[in-house]
């Protein structure tokens, strides 16, 4: 590749990078990395391992409160960070190196329309897209006028991510740093995105640095991988070698945390007796979204679902397939246009405020992003106590005892009750959200992608907790997700949604190993397990050597 030509500087060269927080605690210690021009490096590690600090350092950015203690970063031979001499990275950003942040929904200016966002980074002099239409087409977004008039919040997560990538690539930078670009995207969107990034690399020789914790995703994009732990470089090398035969326990742990849809967990022994009446029954549920003034978009059509007591049913589909709308309709937050929902044979009102208190308690919703689902100004203990208040609630002293018991049930220390959500990690926040849902004494937990914002190792812990809660409280789970690995790990049965329609239902093992519907097959193909991804990476490496 280009980097192997003698004299060409490596695309990214990091020497002795040490970044500390305000207190002098190192976040990244003495890091050395080199990425050849046109190469692709994955930086993996659990959260808190310094991945994001490293990613930002490549752009010459240090987060507020952090300090460059030592080291030097050069991109395409030009310094972006230099502890000894100082460097000004600003002229390089966008043109030489660009960044795709983890959460594109928050990095796109909410008050700018798609067209203006796309135009804002066009470089007419360069060889990149010259118009907003071209930019949108380059990331396979519709270039229609209606689409260009939308604001970021009117796009799906995948569309936001593709727009952010299109903007990052607009000026044809030599190096692109991707911070978990597929987190929060469904498998098909993610697969499309990865294919697009691979193509970009092939066509333009763009150097990629992919920060991530999902090894199965990282392995599909990169040649080499660097494993970080507590700010140190643990090991690095070709991805198939490092992850295929992990030498270090920390790497091993990362590899083990990856869930493989091809190998679903053994079916749980305790299946509800077939004769028992279903706990929750959904018949012909149809829901619409309002888009613009008059248009109505079908979000779910004729959904039939049954959920037995103690069962876990996974609702799977790509983004925009209507899975979240179904959950919101069940929770009484979205008024369906047709259909009936019964809980233990009793019909449920469409709106939450028309349901009786027992019905409200019986169905609890847990959100995808725990940081948004918890009031940032309310202490953990008060948040968990919320469902215990009110006329039918508990007196204060008993409430405190119950809160302590609930926190214990989700494996959080009772001392955390006095903390604010912002002081907790994402995994802890999601546990708090679960404790709050459990406080109501629910029969059904509606889980809306509750692990998708979490790190793989944290995800494994939360899934184990859900298993445990099912066993101890007998609660049923309706688990919305796009991650088939998670489905294989937790669900008894699966319902696959495509554009608002259920295309396949069945026991988890059967659906994942012998799918009947094409769409299910596509979903499965889009998310190979780590083993397949590594084999793919090895084949790629073989191919480029030949």
């Amino acid at each position, binding site marked *: 590749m280009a980097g192997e030509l003698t004299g060409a500087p490596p695309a990214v060269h990091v020497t002795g990078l040490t*970044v500390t*927080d*305000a207190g002098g605690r190192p*976040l990244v210690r003495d890091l050395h990395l080199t990425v050849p021009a046109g190469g692709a490096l994955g930086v993996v590690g*659990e*959260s*808190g*391992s310094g*991945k*994001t*600090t490293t990613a*930002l350092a490549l752009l010459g*950015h240090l987060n*507020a*409160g*952090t300090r460059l203690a030592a080291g030097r970063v050069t991109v395409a031979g030009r310094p972006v960070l230099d502890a000894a001499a100082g460097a000004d990275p600003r002229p390089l950003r966008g043109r030489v190196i660009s960044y795709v942040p*983890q*959460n594109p929904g*928050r*990095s796109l200016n909410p008050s700018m329309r798609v067209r203006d966002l796309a135009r804002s980074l066009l470089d007419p002099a360069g060889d990149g897209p010259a118009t907003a239409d071209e930019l949108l087409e380059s990331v396979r977004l519709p270039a229609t006028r209606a689409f260009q008039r939308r604001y970021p919040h009117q796009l799906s997560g995948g569309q936001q991510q593709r727009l952010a990538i299109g903007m990052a690539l607009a000026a044809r930078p030599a190096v692109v740093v991707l*911070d978990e670009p597929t987190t929060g995207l469904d498998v098909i969107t993610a697969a499309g995105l990865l294919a697009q990034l691979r193509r970009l690399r092939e066509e333009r020789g763009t150097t990629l640095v992919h920060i991530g914790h999902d090894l199965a995703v990282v392995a599909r994009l990169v040649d080499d991988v660097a494993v970080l732990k507590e700010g140190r470089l643990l090991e690095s090398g070709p991805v198939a070698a490092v992850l295929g035969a992990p030498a270090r326990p920390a790497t091993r742990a990362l590899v083990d945390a990856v869930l493989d849809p091809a190998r679903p967990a053994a079916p749980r022994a305790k299946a509800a007796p077939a004769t028992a009446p279903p706990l929750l029954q959904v018949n012909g549920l149809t829901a619409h979204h309002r888009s613009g003034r008059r248009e109505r978009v079908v979000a779910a059509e004729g959904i039939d679902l049954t959920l037995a007591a103690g069962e876990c049913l996974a609702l799977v589909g790509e983004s925009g397939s209507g899975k979240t709308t179904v959950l919101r309709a069940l*929770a009484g*937050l979205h008024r369906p246009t047709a259909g009936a929902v019964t809980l233990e044979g009793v019909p449920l009102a469409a709106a*939450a*405020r028309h*349901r009786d*208190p027992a019905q*409200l*308690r019986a*169905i*609890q*919703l847990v*959100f995808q*992003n*725990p*940081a*948004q*689902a*918890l*009031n*940032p*100004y*309310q202490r953990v203990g008060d948040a968990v106590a*919320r*469902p215990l208040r*009110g006329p039918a609630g508990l007196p204060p002293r008993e409430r405190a005892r119950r809160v302590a018991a609930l926190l214990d049930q989700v494996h959080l220390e009772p001392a955390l009750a006095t903390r*604010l*959500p*912002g002081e*907790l*990690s*994402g*995994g*802890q*926040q999601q546990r708090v959200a679960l404790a709050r849902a459990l406080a109501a004494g629910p029969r059904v937990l509606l889980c809306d992608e509750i692990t998708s*914002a*979490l*790190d793989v*190792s*944290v995800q494994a812990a939360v899934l184990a907790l859900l298993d445990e809660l099912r066993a101890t409280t007998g609660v049923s789970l309706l688990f919305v997700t796009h991650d088939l690995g998670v489905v294989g790990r937790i669900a008894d049965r699966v319902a696959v949604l495509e554009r608002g329609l259920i295309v396949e239902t069945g026991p988890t093992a059967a659906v994942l190993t012998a799918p009947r519907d094409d769409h299910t097959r596509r979903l499965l193909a889009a998310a190979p397990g780590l083993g397949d991804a590594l084999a793919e990476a090895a084949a790629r490496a073989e191919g480029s050597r030949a």
Partner: protein
Amino acid sequence: MRRTTLRRIGVPRSLTRGWGLAGALTLVALLALAVAGPLLAPHPLDEPVADVGQLPGPGLWLGADQLGRDVFSRTLHGGLTTLGVSVGGTLALYLVGVPLGVVAGYRGGWVDAVTVRAADVLLALPGLLLALLLVAGLGGSGGVLLLCVVLTQLPALTRLVRTATLEAGSRAFVEAARARGESAVRVVGFDVLPTIRPVILADAGLRLRSSVIVVAGLNFLGLGLHPPTADWGLMISENRDIIGLNPWAALAPGALLALFTVAANAVGDESAATRTATRTAARTAAGTAAGTDPTDAAPTDADPREARP
């Protein structure tokens, strides 16, 4: 320690340092002067003690005004009316405007539509014109001035609070509470008010400044309080004819009014500036700081999703 104590009782961080602190201290000092001033006045309010427009001298620290009265004593007296009506009016404004905005924003539907349209009608009238109408109809008195303060600023405040409430109401934790069937009062008390509090605080300094300008302006124009009341706005108006004889008679109350508005501005600006700054920081760190509160984010670098095991 001291700063954390102040923070705990709800003082925004911006007011514990720099211009914010200076502004807050000045505001407090001026209010103290307005309240305690009358007790310190050396001369009676409305009796001539010297020649008209006499310059400052011993025992007559700011000279005499257009009727030979002691400017120093009148200045000490004159703050209470202006500042009292402004501060009281601003408080009344928040007591009315915040509930109105919250109800409109949270309840939505026709309540919202009616509130917003009513606010728009009031907004269509220039503030001064509205005040003139009120004074013409009800006469000039402290109570009417207070009403002017409230009515001229109510529409803007209500719309601000309504917008903030709309935004707060779309948060996932508010939806969660709605799905639990919690009463609107509880959701507003626990979730909405704490969320919109920073917006309201940032706005308060600017509103106070506007209140002072409304009150002092009306008094200066002779539409508010009447002579012989000692009032800073009125004093400027009364003494502008003798400004060549004793400029202090108009300058002293004017300077104090200016100081008050500058201090109120500083407090408002600092609250607003700090808020924007943390917001910007939150946006640039969006990739990392997914879970921190954007209004009051302590800088953290570690990936917050699972910093602790």
